[in-house]
């Protein structure tokens, strides 16, 4: 029993690590721009495709592949945001955040179908060897997945440093806290909005590439996970970066641990009951009030 629990915890951490990066991206964009950008699913897929092309056509190593994914997903995120979402944000009313969020769902569908048009519906695998798991005691751990976890945590730490040490990171936090005050201090919110979108979507892109290395990439790769990503971000409080990581990891772990008591068909149920319980106990998410982009 104990080894089962341990094994499922490890499996859950691995699933959680895969969704932690896009959840970080979603949280970052929400903190700075004030709306939930659901098109992050399509950027995750974009990153996965970019990584796949870099890997299979250019035969680049892992780190270069991930940089490709970051840049392509980030750039595509900024361009599509400028074209489709920024014009709606310009005339701001109380309904704007919801309208932009809905528009981002539409944007997500448009992008997904564009991928389908160019790449077809097939599954595409990376040209990377697949490794057998290592055994630590009775618990199996995948090497690839362990890498994913390390990369996700490493990026979260880098991001935290960026926000607490650099001028531009602090400026972003200022915009997140109060746009008008930040503008009075001479901070240009639009430029920061672009940067936040670039980093947020880039993170999703890396997440997509890691996920695709583990599984494969097809046009719906991102859409299949968007609810889980959103859930991770919400549980973490939507504006807290450490919260997003913890939220994503706990969504993964709760889902897998649920298998101990429930048949696997009901797995997403356990995760979503967990959201309800978290939000009932702490309406602002587990990390409400904690340090993040927004203090």
């Amino acid at each position, binding site marked *: 029993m104990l080894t*089962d629990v341990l*094994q*499922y915890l490890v*499996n*859950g951490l*691995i*699933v959680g690590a*895969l*969704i932690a990066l896009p959840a970080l991206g979603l949280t970052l964009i929400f903190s700075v721009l004030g709306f939930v950008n659901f098109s992050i699913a399509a950027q995750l897929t974009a990153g996965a495709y970019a990584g796949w092309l870099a890997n299979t056509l250019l035969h680049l190593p892992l780190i270069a592949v991930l940089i490709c994914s970051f840049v392509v997903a980030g750039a595509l995120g900024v361009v599509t945001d400028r074209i489709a979402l920024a014009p709606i944000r310009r005339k701001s009313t109380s309904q704007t955040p919801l309208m932009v969020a809905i528009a981002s769902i539409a944007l997500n569908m448009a992008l997904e179908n564009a991928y*389908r048009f160019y790449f*077809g*519906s*097939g*599954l*595409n*695998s990376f040209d*990377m*060897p*697949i*490794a*057998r*798991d290592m055994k630590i005691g009775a618990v*199996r751990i*995948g090497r690839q*997945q362990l890498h994913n976890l390390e990369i996700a945590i490493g990026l979260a730490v880098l991001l935290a440093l960026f926000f607490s040490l650099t001028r531009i990171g602090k400026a972003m936090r200022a915009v997140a806290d109060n746009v008008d005050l930040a503008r009075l201090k001479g901070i240009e919110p639009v430029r920061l909005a672009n940067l936040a979108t670039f980093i947020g979507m880039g993170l999703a892109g890396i997440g997509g590439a890691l*996920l695709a290395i*583990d*599984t*494969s990439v*097809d*046009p*719906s790769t991102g859409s*299949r*996970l968007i609810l889980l990503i959103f859930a991770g971000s919400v549980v973490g409080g939507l504006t807290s970066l450490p919260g997003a990581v913890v939220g994503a990891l706990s969504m993964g772990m709760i889902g*897998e641990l649920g*298998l101990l008591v429930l*048949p*696997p*068909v*009901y*797995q*997403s149920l356990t995760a979503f009951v967990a959201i309800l319980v978290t939000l009932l106990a702490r309406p602002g998410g587990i990390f409400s009030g904690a340090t993040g982009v927004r203090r």
Partner: protein
Amino acid sequence: MSKIDRRNLLRAGLGAGGLMLSSNLSSSWAQQNDPIQIGLIIPLTGATSQFGATMGQAAKIAETEINSAGGVRGRPIQIVIEDDQSNPEAAVRAAHKLIDVDKVVAIGGSYASAVTSAIAPLCWEGRTVLFTSSGADSITKLPHQGYIFRTSPTVTLQGTRVGDFAVKLGAKKMFFLGPQTPFAQSYIDIISSIFKAAGGSGSGLIYEDKKASYRSEVDQALKESPDVIVLGGYVPDTSVVLKDLYRAGFSGKKVGFSFGINDALTKAVPAEASNGAYSLVPSASENSEAYKHLVEKMKLSHLDSYSCQVYDHVVLASLALAHAPSGKVDGTAVRDNVRAISQDSEGKRTDDVVDALKLAASGAHVNYDGPSGALEFADNGDVKGVFFRYEQVEEGKLVVRKVG
């Protein structure tokens, strides 16, 4: 009320009558010249979309062939393709559109069992024939009044074949891993009972599709230490399960179905993860002239059974209408005449659409055999006499092991 006098009433009546007359005229004109619409609900996107594109192409070839041979009763046929998105909800919307707006006489394609189960009631209520390539037994058990024809082998048949095959491979302990579908539990029951009858044992687990990892499901399966795992999923989930089985170091046998283990899968999974996996493939009638002809027209070296079936869906609907003694062009006429053109023991056997059309139009007896098979239907609408092939992945490619 006082403003309506007799004269105005008369004018209005005449006007309305005239309108009705003209609309009557135009609709009868339309019936004489407009194309006969045949709907197609196929998966072009989503988890079941591996054969969607070739299904559509095969149907279009049937359309071209029938129209260049003069059409049906002097009218061309027209294929209306709708994407079911591998999603029953989208399929229901598509079926409503095809039946109510396009007024199709029949709907073909209909691949995933969940999709077919969802649209079947709309079809029989709308007196529209549904040709399906789905496997779930429950479909033809519905009160479909004869409007459903299934050209694919049933789940029971496929499950029995997979079970027998796995037993012949020497396996004793079977574990089934598959997503929630209308047929998952039947597979577990059927295959387990075959193993029990052979002195072994069997169990299974139904998982949720759309997951990024099936490690915990694989852990649960391996706890039973099976020597064969039956994979009952479609390509996206089966590809992840195969990778996770490899990572977990599973060294037993793997057997799956053609909707999960096929060329799309071998391209998506590294060879080391897929090697050795068997696939049960409902076979098209690959030695027939009809099959060779269709493959050549599609400029391919090989065509899956499902796309052949969809080609036959279009042909069956057209031939049935061409043969219908009543001369009516509607779903009921299709229903009442499919068997007359596909399994008339006195009919002239042909696997050429143009020949078959001429014979049917001239009122002669005809027995059409298509690229998908002999197309003989039992009373409940299930096709009889299906061939299977057993294939195995070798160095990342599927190789035929046995035809039976």
